[in-house]
C-alpha cells in the first residue's frame, strides 16, 4: 500500500509538472505576451514598444528558463532595462535590490503577482478557494444524500414504476448542463417578470452572508447535474447487488424487505458510488466555473475565467496547479478509499 501511494504521488507530481508547463507554454506564446504588454502598458503601443516592455520585464527569455524561474529552481531574472531601471523577478517594492532573494518560485512559496487583480496570487487563490469551498460543501451536502436515496430507491426494485420514474428524473438531470438548468431555474424562481420570485438571481451577496434565498439556486444548479449521474451509478450497483445470491438467501429466510435493503444490500451497493462521487470532482469544477459566472459568485471558477480571459499568466498557473491537484488528489483518494471499502481487496 505504501509503495502504491508513493508511486501514485510520483505520477501526480509528474502530471502536475507537465500540465503547468503546457499552461506556461501556451500563456507565454508571443501573441499572448503582446496582449499582456498592451493591457499593462497602453493599447496603442507600437511593436517596438511592446518588444522593449517585454524585454525589460523578463518575458523574452527562453520559455524553459522562465518556467524554471517560476518553479524556483533557477535564479530569478535581474535585467537592467533599456530605460536604465534595474528590474528583477524577486524584487519587492520598497526593498533595496541587493536584499532580494536569488530564487523566488513556487518552491519558495512565492506564487507570483496577478496582473489583473494587482494582488499576490497566493492571496487571491486562497480567498477564492475558500468561497468555492463553501459552495462545494453545500453542493455535496445536497447532492450526495439525495443522489444516493434516489439511486437506492430506484435500484431496489428494478423495473418497477418507482424505478422508471426516478431513472427518468436522473437521466433528465444528467442531460441538463448547468447553463441550461441555471437559466431555467432563474426563469422560474428568480425572474422579476413572471415566476415565483422566491430566490435571488445572483449570488454576489452570498459571498459574505450566504442564506437560503441567495445561495440555494447556485447550489441546486451544480447539484442537479452531478446528482443524476451518481444516482444512476448507485441504481446500477444496487440493482446488481439485489440479484446476488446472499440477497436471495435472505429473501428465502424470510427477512423483511426493508431489512434486506438496509442491512444486507446497502453497504455493498455503496462501494461503487463512492468512487464515482470522488471522480465527480473534476466535473464539478467545470460546473463551478459555469455557475459562478452565471450567478456572479466571485469564487475560484470566476477567477479562472478572469485570469484566462486576461492572460494573467501567474494567476492562471496558480489556478491550474490548484485544480490539477484537486483532480489528482481526489483520484488518489478514490483509489485508496475503494481498497479500504472493498473487503475482497482489503483482506487479500
Amino acid at each position, binding site marked *: 500500500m505504501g509503495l502504491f501511494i508513493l508511486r501514485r504521488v510520483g505520477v501526480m507530481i509528474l502530471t502536475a509538472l507537465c500540465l503547468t508547463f503546457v499552461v506556461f507554454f501556451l500563456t507565454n506564446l508571443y501573441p499572448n505576451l503582446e496582449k499582456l504588454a498592451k493591457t499593462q502598458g497602453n493599447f496603442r503601443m507600437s511593436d517596438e514598444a511592446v518588444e522593449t516592455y517585454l524585454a525589460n520585464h523578463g518575458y523574452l527569455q527562453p520559455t524553459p528558463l522562465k518556467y524554471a524561474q517560476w518553479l524556483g529552481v533557477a535564479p530569478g531574472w535581474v535585467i537592467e532595462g533599456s530605460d536604465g531601471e534595474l528590474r528583477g523577478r524577486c524584487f519587492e517594492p520598497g526593498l533595496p535590490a541587493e536584499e532580494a532573494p536569488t530564487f523566488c518560485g513556487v518552491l519558495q512559496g512565492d506564487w507570483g503577482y496577478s496582473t489583473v487583480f494587482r494582488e499576490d496570487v497566493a492571496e487571491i487563490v486562497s480567498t477564492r478557494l475558500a468561497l468555492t469551498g463553501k459552495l462545494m460543501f453545500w453542493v455535496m451536502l445536497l447532492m450526495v444524500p439525495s443522489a444516493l436515496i434516489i439511486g437506492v430507491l430506484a435500484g431496489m426494485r428494478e423495473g418497477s414504476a418507482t424505478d422508471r420514474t426516478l431513472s427518468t428524473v436522473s437521466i433528465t438531470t444528467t442531460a441538463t448542463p448547468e447553463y*441550461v438548468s441555471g437559466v431555467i431555474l432563474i426563469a422560474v424562481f428568480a*425572474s422579476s417578470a413572471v415566476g415565483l420570485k422566491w430566490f435571488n438571481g445572483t449570488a454576489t451577496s452570498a459571498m459574505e452572508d450566504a442564506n437560503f434565498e441567495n445561495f440555494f439556486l447556485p447550489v441546486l444548479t451544480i447539484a442537479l447535474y452531478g446528482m443524476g449521474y451518481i444516482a444512476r451509478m448507485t441504481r446500477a450497483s444496487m440493482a446488481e447487488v439485489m440479484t446476488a445470491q446472499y440477497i436471495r438467501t435472505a429473501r428465502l429466510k424470510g427477512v423483511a424487505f426493508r431489512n434486506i435493503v438496509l442491512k444486507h444490500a446497502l453497504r455493498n451497493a455503496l462501494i461503487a458510488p463512492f468512487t464515482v462521487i470522488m471522480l465527480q470532482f473534476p466535473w464539478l469544477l467545470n460546473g463551478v466555473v459555469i455557475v459562478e459566472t452565471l450567478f456572479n459568485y466571485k469564487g475560484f471558477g470566476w477567477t479562472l475565467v478572469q485570469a484566462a480571459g486576461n492572460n494573467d499568466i501567474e494567476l492562471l498557473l496558480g*489556478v491550474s496547479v490548484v485544480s490539477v491537484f484537486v483532480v489528482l488528489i481526489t483520484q488518489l483518494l478514490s483509489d485508496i478509499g475503494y481498497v479500504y471499502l472493498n473487503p475482497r481487496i482489503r483482506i487479500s
Partner: protein
Amino acid sequence: MEELSWTGSLGTIMDPVLYVVAALFVVLVALRVVLSLFVRAGPGVVAAADGTATATGGPVGLVDTGMKLSGLALIAVVLVYLLGGAVAGWPGAGIIGGMSRQFLPVWIALVATFALSLGFKRRLGLYGKLFDSVIGMIGFGLVMFWVFTGIFSAMDLIATHAPLDQISGMKNKVPGTPLRFGDEGAYPYYLLGGDNLARDVFSRMVTGSWVVVQIAPLATLFAFMVGITLGLPAGYYGGKLDTFLSFLANLILAFPVILLFYLLVTPEIVATGIPNYMATVLFVFPLVFTGVLINSRFHTSPMKRNLLIAVILGAMLWVYLSLISAGGTKVDVLPYWLDLFDIPGGILVVFVSVVFVNSPTVFRIVRGLAMDIKTRDYVAAAQTRGEGPWYIMLWEILPNARGPLIVDFCLRIGYTTILLGTLGFFGLGLPPESPDWGSTINEGRKLLTIYLHPALPPAFALLSLVLGLNLLADGLREESLKD
C-alpha cells in the same frame, strides 16, 4: 394586427382539456410512486424470471391503468395541438400552431422514418431492435427531430426570418408579436419573440440546430477514430506503450476543460497556428485507421489492397488536406484550385478542441474493452491461425466491442453538444452573432430576470436534444443486452 396567443382559437376548446388531463396525469404518477413504496402486492401476483414478483390489479393496478390512460390522453391532446397547428397555421392555432406549421417538413420526415423503420424493423439489426423499447423510440424521435430540423433549416425551409435580420421595433418583444414594419411577403410574426438585438428567437433557435447537428456527431466520430486507433494497441500490447499513452490521456483528463478551452480558443492562440497544427495531427487518425483497416484485411492479396488503398486513401487524403489547409493560416499546403472547401476559422478551432477533449475518454474505454476481449478464445484462435496483431485488433476485437462503443457514441454526442454549448456560453470560438444555442443562451442570460423568452427556447432545445441522445443510448443499451 393582434398579438398571437399561445394556442389561438384552438385553445379555447383544448386548453381546459389539457389542464385537466395534465393535472390528472401528474397526480396519478405521484400516487403510483408513493403507492409502490408502501403497498406490497395486489391480488394478482406475477413472478418474474429473476425471482421478484410484480403486483397486478388491486389499488396499484388501478392507478397503473389510470396513469397509462391519462398519459395516452395527454399525448393525444398534444397531438391535436400540433396537427391542428400544422393544418391551420398561426391565425387559428396561435404560436404553437404557427411553429407546428413551420416544422411541417420535419413532421413529414419523422413520420416517414418511423413508418419505414417500424415496417422493416426485423431486418434492421440493432437499429430495428431499438423500436422494441419505448424509451429508445422516444429518444430516437427527439434526436431525429433536431437532426431533421438542422437539415431542413440549412435548406431554409423552417426559419421564418433570417437569423441575423434585425427588424426595428421588435427588440425584446414577447412571443407572438406581429411585425410593425414588415415587408410584403415576410412572415408577419415573431413566433417566439425578439431578442436584445431585435432578431427572431425562433429562427435563431432553428438555425442554431444546424451548427450542433453538423459539428457534434462529426467531432465525436473523430474522437472515436483517435481513441480507437490509440486505445486498441494500448490495451492489446500493454506494457510501456500502454503506460505512456495512459499517462498522456490522464494528463488531458486532469485538465479542467474550461481552462483548456480558454487556452486553445482565444484569438491570440489561433494566430500562432497551434489549433491548425493540432488539427493536422488529430485528423490524420481517420486516415491511419482506414489504412491499417484495409491493409490488415487484404494484405494477402496485394493487388486488391493496393487498389483499395489507392482509391479510398487517395480520396481521404484529398479531403484531409483541404480540411486542414486554409488560405492565410499557418497550415496552407494545398494550392487554391485544389482546395475543396475551407472551414471557417472559428469552427475548425472549436472542432479541434472538442475532439481533443473527448478522445482521451474514448481511449480509456477502448483500452479497457480491448484488455477484456483479448483474453477471449476467439482471439487466441486468431493468434494460433497466425493473424497479425492489427488484424486481431481491428477485425476480431473491435467488432466484438461494438455494443458498448455504440452506446457510448450516443452518450458522447450528447456530451459534445454540452461542450459546444459551454464554448458558446463563454463566448469562445464561434463568432458572437452565431445562432448556436450556447451563444444564444449566453446572450439571453444577461437580461434573464426581465426578459425570459430569448434564453429559454435555446435552453430547452439543447436540453431536449441531449435528453434524446441519453434516452437513445439507454434504449440501445437495454436492447443490446437482451441477446
